[in-house]
């Protein structure tokens, strides 16, 4: 059980990192150093951290327009995230991608701001790792809104008929931008959409990292053995608006408060103290360390330069037949 406790402490630290980064991005946005395309992840940390807890470096992660939590959980540094968000050269896309689209080749991480597209291109990564036959998998994150797109349905069907190793993770955060999920998704549970393609799926509490991690720990070995795709719908909530500056006229403060009471970080903290006898002091030390690391990462990124115009227009094409590209 010692390893269980150390896992929980790792999850706790990682969730703190995610939140520390998001909490710093808000003032950076207000100073106009980060643009509107920054989509806060606060509240959903248990999903990214729980899901990525079962991953290996050779696994691919396909993310969304709200990618920072997934990226950190897959192994990107806080510095890399700050740099990309700030448009600095230390970002995975050298600051050319910004808050909602970048490619981090070293961490096998792809994300983008076209809702639903990833479900289709995840099949390609999955085909490639299936062919390699080493048990690597692809995790494809998407939101509730993506489940209405053509790409979503086409991609799931292809993955199902070819038994591709894709773990679909729906982050059902209750809203597609400003529209409540029950108004735009015809299925009572989004996981049912996976089931309609014969994809094994379940719905879990996305505010509890241990529940997410347990579901993933069950699904991932099954995927690695070549059984085909699986689907996990995580029920979660974003505390902040769809983007910063969202008028949020579609929900009440009481609703937000209700969800904040289920906060995944507070919840795990209580568990660590009560069930695992972790001392208040050691948690406070960890919290202070993460805050300090986040400050340091932010400062380091702010000190980086932006790409030059020359750098910004490079690598559009691989040089073609010796021509200028």
């Amino acid at each position: 059980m010692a390893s269980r406790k150390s896992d929980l402490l790792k999850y706790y630290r990682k969730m703190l990192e995610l939140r520390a980064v998001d909490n710093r991005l808000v003032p950076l946005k207000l100073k106009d150093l980060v643009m509107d395309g920054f989509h806060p992840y606060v509240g959903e940390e248990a999903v990214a951290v729980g899901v990525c807890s079962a991953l290996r470096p050779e696994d691919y992660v396909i993310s969304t327009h709200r990618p920072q939590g997934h990226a950190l959980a897959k192994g990107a540094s806080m510095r890399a995230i700050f740099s990309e968000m700030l448009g600095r050269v230390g970002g995975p896309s050298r600051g050319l991608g910004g808050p909602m689209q970048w490619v981090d080749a070293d961490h096998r991480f792809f994300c983008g701001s076209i809702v639903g597209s990833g479900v289709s291109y995840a099949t390609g990564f999955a085909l490639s790792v299936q062919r390699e036959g080493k048990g690597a998998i692809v995790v494809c994150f998407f939101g509730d809104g993506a489940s209405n797109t053509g790409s979503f349905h086409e991609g799931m069907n292809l993955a199902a008929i070819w038994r591709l190793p894709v773990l679909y993770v729906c982050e059902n955060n209750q809203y597609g931008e400003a529209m409540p999920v029950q108004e735009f998704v015809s299925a009572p549970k989004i996981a049912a959409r996976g089931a309609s393609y014969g994809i094994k799926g379940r719905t879990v509490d996305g505010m509890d990292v241990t529940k997410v991690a347990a579901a993933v720990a069950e699904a991932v070995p099954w995927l690695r053995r070549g059984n085909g795709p699986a689907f996990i719908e995580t029920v979660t909530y974003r505390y902040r608006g769809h983007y910063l500056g969202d008028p949020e006229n579609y929900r009440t403060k009481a609703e937000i408060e209700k969800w904040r009471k289920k906060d995944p970080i507070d919840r795990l903290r209580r568990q660590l103290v009560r069930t695992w006898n972790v001392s208040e002091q050691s948690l406070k030390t960890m919290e202070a360390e993460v805050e300090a690391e986040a400050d340091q990462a932010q400062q380091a990124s702010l000190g980086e330069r932006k790409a030059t115009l020359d750098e910004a227009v490079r690598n559009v094409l691989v040089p073609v037949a010796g021509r200028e590209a």
Partner: protein
Amino acid sequence: MAERTLTYAEAIQEALDQEMARDPAVCVMGEDIGVWGNLFGCTKGLLEKYGKGRVRDTPISEAALMGCGVGSAAAGMRPVVEIMYIDFISIAMDQIVNHAARWHQLSGGKVKVPLVVRTQGGVGFRNSSQHSQSLENWFVNVPGLVVVMPSTPYDVKGLLKAAIRDDNPVIFIEHKAVYRNKGPVPSEDYVIPLGVAEVKRKGTDLTIVANSWMVLHALAAAEELSREGISCEVVDPRTLYPLDEAVIAESVRKSGRCLVVNEAPAAGGWSGEVAAVVMERAFDKLKAPVRRLCGRRTGVPYDKDLERAVVPGVADVVREARALAGR
């Protein structure tokens, strides 16, 4: 020894076969490319030879099919994805434009997307307005894509092999009216570099720049005009982007006259791009304004005669070239 001839479709099949034999990362995916071997036989025999793992019949599901191509290319495979008719590519545009074309740059040059999208466009089979369009212009304007349109069996083999070996997403557009055309195609391995034009016919009075099926019209027109004493040079850029501007400019600087022939509608298109290149690089040598002969801005009609009438034919090229030559 007599020169070996193949049809355009057979040349495609041979290119795919040779590349699949050469490199195990090459695979083909598409609607009915396996058991059927493609509508025109372009992938015939590949399933039997290379198996279901590398020759994948897919559902009628262009977004997923293209997504699978894009993702697998980024992850190290060299997929040749077939879109049966270019008109269907509209369903797959997001995967090409927003993802395949972006990842090399967004990864700081680390990720390559060696994807080939084989498709076919144009009139010729009375397929009407959702199976006969010339949509190459859409792709020419997207940063991060290479666009190839071969006109002959010899070229299609060498260019397809080059496209498969190229590390960029390549939109490889064939023409349905030329699949059965025969021409000399050596059996050996040869590659025609992308981005390199060819002068298909030498001439002195005017330059015709044409692509795909229109190259054949231009050559037929040039032959006819030669009997009237008008000498046409025919330039086939073969790759629409990146465009071999130097060969076009050199030809027009010599002839002083330029006619651009393209099956797609003129406005906002590649034909205008070629005209602009001529203005930029050969203006001082022009004896007459550049002319364009393009497809009509209309849906392609069903009727056999009407579908031919809305795109340039040999007689149209002859008429335009004659007028340009001042005869």
